[in-house]
């Protein structure tokens, strides 16, 4: 019962949204009740908030959502260091941030093929070396990052701009379920349950993305984009910003190139990030084992992503035979298919 009252108090504090003051008072060791009273909310407002907080608590318990108050030992310690940490985190899934280091990966909602490929490459290298991925669970780079982390057997945290019980964007419903069921990931949010994706939510949640990690990697971002806002927060919070360069004339890379100009570390691979953690990257086996001569032909032609028709004409194989070999290589997990009948080596 004491626990319940305690959590309801923290929900109440979270609902006031006065994070800076709350953090300040809390860090001085002031008790929860005293923090509430020092906020001087007024009797009427206080009882209204208390009632709402009680309902919130019940909803969370009913739907299996965990509540992590600022005072909890489990509260992500890097996040507690920022100037305005949420007073309370709603959590769906496992507290994976307790399991090791994380890096934030953010980028545009409309990535180019280059952006998608580089995200996969960087993320898979990171998770291969035991580093988890934090991102915003939006379309585009965010989705690729979460997916690749999950597929690579790593940890991943989605920071949502809605209540954690809301699926947004709707098309990621399956991915959300997969992440929860894998028990290797979670979703957190400062917003009350059932909160809809309001436009002003997203810039705010970006400070949590950067706040959760020491390093934020910006993959592809135009000048005015959420990823740039996240990078801005990271700098404010005294964290590091890494950026992946792109073509000077590509809209999607204007933001990242700008960051590099301003002094962000230029990275081109996962290894560049691992350096910061003093991790010597595991060497992935570049030369795949046991290729029969025909498979080797196609593997060798695929030193860069190529159109099927080109591979067929270069290799001189007949189309039926070619398709057989492609399936074999796919089964071995060596190559993958891209939309537009393109083939590429995996992580290559």
């Amino acid at each position, binding site marked *: 019962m004491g626990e319940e009252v305690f959590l309801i108090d923290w929900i109440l504090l979270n609902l006031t949204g006065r994070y800076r003051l709350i953090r300040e008072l809390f860090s001085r060791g002031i008790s929860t009740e005293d923090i509430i009273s020092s906020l001087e909310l007024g009797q009427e407002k206080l009882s209204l908030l208390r009632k709402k907080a009680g309902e919130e608590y019940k909803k969370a318990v009913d739907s299996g959502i965990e509540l992590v108050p600022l005072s909890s030992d489990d509260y992500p310690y890097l996040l507690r260091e920022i100037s305005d940490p949420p007073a309370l985190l709603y959590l769906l899934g496992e507290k994976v941030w307790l399991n090791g280091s994380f890096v934030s990966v953010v980028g545009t909602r409309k990535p180019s093929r280059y952006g998608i490929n580089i995200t996969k490459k960087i993320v898979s290298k990171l998770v291969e070396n035991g580093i988890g991925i934090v991102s915003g669970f939006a379309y585009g780079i965010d989705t690729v990052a979460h997916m690749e982390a999950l597929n690579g057997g790593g940890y991943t945290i989605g920071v949502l701009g809605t209540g954690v019980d809301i699926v947004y964007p709707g098309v990621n419903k399956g991915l959300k379920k997969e992440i929860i069921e894998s028990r290797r990931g979670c979703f957190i949010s400062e917003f009350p349950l059932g909160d809809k994706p309001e436009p002003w939510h997203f810039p705010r949640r970006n400070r949590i993305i950067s706040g959760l990690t020491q390093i934020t990697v910006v993959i592809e971002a135009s000048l005015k984009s959420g990823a740039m806002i996240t990078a801005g927060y990271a700098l404010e919070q005294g964290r590091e910003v890494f950026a992946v360069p792109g073509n000077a004339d590509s809209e999607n890379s204007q933001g990242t190139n700008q960051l590099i100009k301003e002094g962000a570390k230029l990275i081109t691979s996962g290894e560049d990030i691992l350096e910061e953690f003093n991790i010597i990257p595991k060497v992935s086996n570049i030369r795949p084992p046991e290729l029969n001569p025909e498979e080797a032909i196609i593997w060798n032609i695929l030193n860069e992503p190529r*159109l*099927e028709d080109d591979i067929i004409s270069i290799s001189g194989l007949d189309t039926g035979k070619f398709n057989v070999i492609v399936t074999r290589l796919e*089964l071995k997990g060596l190559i993958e298919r891209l*939309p537009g009948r393109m083939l590429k080596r995996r992580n290559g």
Partner: protein
Amino acid sequence: MPFNLKGILTGMLAKVISATLSGIEGVPVDVEVDISNGLPSFTIVGLPDQSVQESRERIRSAIKNSDLNFPVKRITVNLAPADIKKEGPAFDLPIAIGILIASEALAPKMEEPFLIVGELSLDGTIRPVNGIISIAIMARDLKIPVMFVPYENSSEAALIPGIKVYGIKNLTDLVQFLNGTISLSPSEPARSIKINEFSGDFNEVKGQESAKRALEIAAAGFHNVIMVGPPGSGKTMLAQRLPTILPPLTEEEALEVTRIYSSAGLLPKGGGIIEERPFRSPHHSISLAGMVGGTSNPKPGEISLAHNGVLFLDEFPEFRRDVLEALRQPMEDGSLVISRAHGSIRFPARFMLVASMNPCPCGYLGDTKKNCTCTQYQIEKYFSKISGPILDRIDIQIEVPRLETDTLIRNTPGEGSNFIRDRINRVREFQIDRFKDGFRFNGLMTPREIKKYCRLNPPVQSLLREIIDKFHLSARSYDKLLKVARTIADLNESEFIREEDILEAIQYRILDRKYWEKKFS
């Protein structure tokens, strides 16, 4: 149905055999004419529609203008059986002959029963009518040995062996022939005619090797196909050439096709037999009736016109939902039944569906040059327009990317249609052997037949299981994969489905594959 084959009665009453169409089937109709004394009048009874009522005026003028006497008496015409709706002008000629017999201006010398159809113009010339081949088939089945038909239809009717068909140019000729004053010779069977506006060859398609191979497999096993690709990638070009590699129509199939086109009134002037596989490509704005056939007196729709051939639906998701859903039953049964107040009519509709669509609403998802501007939600919505049950009936799903110019230039021309067709013909023979029936193909196998003919030996079985796991295939796609693998094995002249056949088949099931469903996976 009481039906007097003798056809002719004496005195003031006459009976002539004629026929009408119900769907694409011929139905016999007795034309009875009674002439009696009384106030001059001319009545037609027996459920005639407007066009039959109007034939009174044509008949009166045609008889007068042929230098014959139109009786100034009380004329009653009955079209029996009275419960079938009669429409169209094909009764003009039999009614006119009936009147001439009843008024004793004509006494046929012919011993055998005969059947008459034809439209009259005012000067007594006889004009062609629709569906003559169906009527000829009916006549053969009812053992009516002689038919008098419009001259322009006669070679079409003569396609049916066992009946003597006389092509008649005008009323006078028929009267004189029946009276025995002139003689006519029976018509010769029609020559073959073309219906497809387009004919090309596969060697004109540069690149797109996988798509060409997939279409070869589709043609060999009569599998339905969906092609996904951006605008201008050559989907239409590929589809149009499909009829050139399909096995030629058998005699019976050719008759079926001709019959459908004849009853739809789509045979070119002069008629003839259709010996090429039809290729139909209706626009996506087509109505339900236009697609499956319909209106109160049902006419064959596009799916029947594509019978034994290819139905190409470009921009597949843009078709109206109800139109697409209506394809489901015919795709299963090979025919369509339209029920009307006066009974139901069956239209044959065994077609190979070739659908094409863009990968996303803007068309450029996966394109190497242009960026796609669609949101994931728009893409999902676009794909969701094709329902699962429809997709379930499409065995082969391929992607047709837009090729860059240097790829197009580098590629040498592909194989000609003739070579491909040779291979396909061989596969067809295997299939005839397998199913003991010329109309059956691998693509039309039932689940029971799949069990029987697509048995896998244990190593192949375990490979298939691995594939299903790896590529997250649904239980649904399992059967499709087996059917396609069966055809590939046939093309490779293998009795059993081997590993390679399965491995290749998986490449023709792109919509099952995860990389396609999620833009970023």
